């Protein structure tokens, strides 16, 4: 993976972004997100497989959490008090792997092995193979219960780490999420954040044409959660939501996103759930992301 969009071809000091003032942080996170999107497109091109639409919609939220807010680094990967980032929408592993590689958990060049035979970079993430992966997700509706367990453990141990769980919106049709939502509110887990990648598309159709989720913020609020509804492709809005007052409750961030964000011909089109772009389309995509 060689193509870079870093200014002057000089990689950003991604470890330092967390300490920047909020405005500057949001600007740098945009650059990181663009780089992650380019990596995703290249990985899917190389593998000739993957879930490009959801990868591109969740990128900004993942990048903002991982580089702008959470204590996540290779140096603290085994630290019991580290923050936990759980990608419940495990089919978007390419986005997670890109984030982890840029953060130095493994060499960026390893991304070329995505989904290749015997690669550690399986189509869905495996914590035993990749440092930085916290949960072996893939079947939907698993991440939030695990996140609840992590948040309970954080309080029980007194170490007070944050747990961020990224779910899809279609994924919320799985009932296990709402079991976990009840537990989280009941136990007042204000150290738990769920980020719903609300791109309004699931594998087969629009969510609202399949099993409607609206009114989604009200659903979470009625379960006893603090709710923020924001533009989920805006790093500044994401930063603000991730650090807002939670009033002693778990926080649900409804991140309104575009599936396929950043590549015009992929954006908001159901067929790009896991379609693989042609070589020509890859070139076009990378041009748009330049």
């Amino acid at each position, binding site marked *: 993976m060689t193509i870079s969009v870093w200014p002057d071809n000089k990689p950003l000091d991604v470890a330092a972004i967390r300490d920047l003032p909020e405005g500057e942080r949001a600007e740098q996170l945009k650059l990181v997100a663009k780089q992650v999107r380019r990596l995703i497109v290249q990985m899917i091109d190389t593998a000739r497989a993957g879930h490009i639409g959801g990868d591109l919609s969740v990128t900004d939220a993942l990048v903002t959490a991982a580089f702008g807010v959470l204590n996540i680094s290779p140096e603290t990967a085994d630290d*019991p008090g580290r923050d*936990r980032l759980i990608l419940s929408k495990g089919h978007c592993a390419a986005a997670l792997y890109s984030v982890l590689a840029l953060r130095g958990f493994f060499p960026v060049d390893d991304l070329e092995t995505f989904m290749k035979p015997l690669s550690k970079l399986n189509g869905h993430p*495996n*914590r*035993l193979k990749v440092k930085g992966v*916290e*949960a*072996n*997700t*893939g*079947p939907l*509706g*698993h991440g*939030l*219960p*695990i*996140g*609840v*367990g*992590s*948040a*309970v*453990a*954080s309080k*029980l*141990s007194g170490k007070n780490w944050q*747990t961020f769980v990224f779910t899809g919106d279609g994924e919320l049709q799985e*009932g*296990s999420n709402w*079991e*976990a939502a*009840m*537990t989280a509110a*009941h136990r007042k887990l204000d150290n738990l954040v769920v980020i719903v990648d609300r791109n309004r598309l699931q594998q087969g159709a629009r969510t609202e044409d399949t099993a409607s989720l609206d009114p989604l913020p009200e659903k979470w609020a009625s379960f006893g959660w603090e709710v923020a509804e924001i533009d989920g492709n805006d790093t500044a809005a994401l930063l603000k939501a991730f650090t807002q007052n939670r009033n002693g409750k778990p926080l649900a961030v409804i991140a309104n996103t575009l599936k396929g964000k950043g590549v015009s011909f992929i954006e908001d089109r159901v067929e790009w759930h896991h379609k693989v772009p042609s070589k020509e389309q890859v070139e076009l995509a990378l041009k748009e992301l330049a």
Partner: protein
Amino acid sequence: MNAHSSVSNETFDCRVAFSEKLIALAEADPRIVAVCNDSVGSSNLNAFRDRFPDRLINVGIAEQNMVGVAAGLANAGFIPFVCAAGPFLSGRATEQVKADVAYSNYGIVLCAMSPGMAYGELGPTHHSIEDLSWMRAIDNLDVLVPADPEQTKAAMDWAVASGRPIYMRVGRHKVPSVTPADRETAFTFGKIDVTGDGNDVALVATGTLVSRAIEAQAILAAEGILARVLNVSTIKPLDAETIIKAAKETKGLVVAEEGVLEGGLGAAVSMTLSENHPAKAKFLGVTSFAPTGSNDFLLEHFGLTAKGIADAARKLVG
């Protein structure tokens, strides 16, 4: 070794030993927590809750969530004992057991309370008779069925020490102690405990059926048929060596379990025999959804009794 041993009249609910042991383990090790699904009473966790109120995480009636929460706790270094009625733990949360526990390689002890047909009259919805088949099919998950209170406690010690993903039945139906007094430990992971060295027939049993096999051994001895009893408390991985030895040294095996025949202990024994030393065998288990009746009545209904085992053995030998 004795030719056979007798079974005492005193019987025990293994959940009592389980809860006493869990408190002792938790006192010694702050990593131990209990996770349950509104099953504080049925899992006998009242004393644990009183002693460690913060370390009992009751998620409500939500088994998928329960197992996921346990995985999150294990991720943070805790050792969760997940306590729920067997049918709901194994059936409702199967995918979480597979992905969040076994595939994730977490040291979580999934404690299937009141397994088999312990819920008797409540009927087949509440019988956990498929669990051994379902759980055996999952890679990297050890499957344990302690046969008495001593084995239950020793298996819990092993579970904590090993840090393994474990599914363990915790019996409700009262059973006598079957652990011979001369054993150094009541439970050795991956080893079948053999009682007697009879060379006519091997009685292979697990859980509630072990004491019944020992009774059958005595019935058969009175008729001059010499049996050995194999107590299989580790269903997976199966102690193939002891099974093969029994097949070689006897005229056949009777395998008895409180569960379906498709995929449980009998299936495991059958595969071991087929690949290594084909032998005559008879498999006893729960062969249909049960009619209404108590646990004892239903065991009798399906021939899962000392008499049923002895009858099967006689046919094999004769």
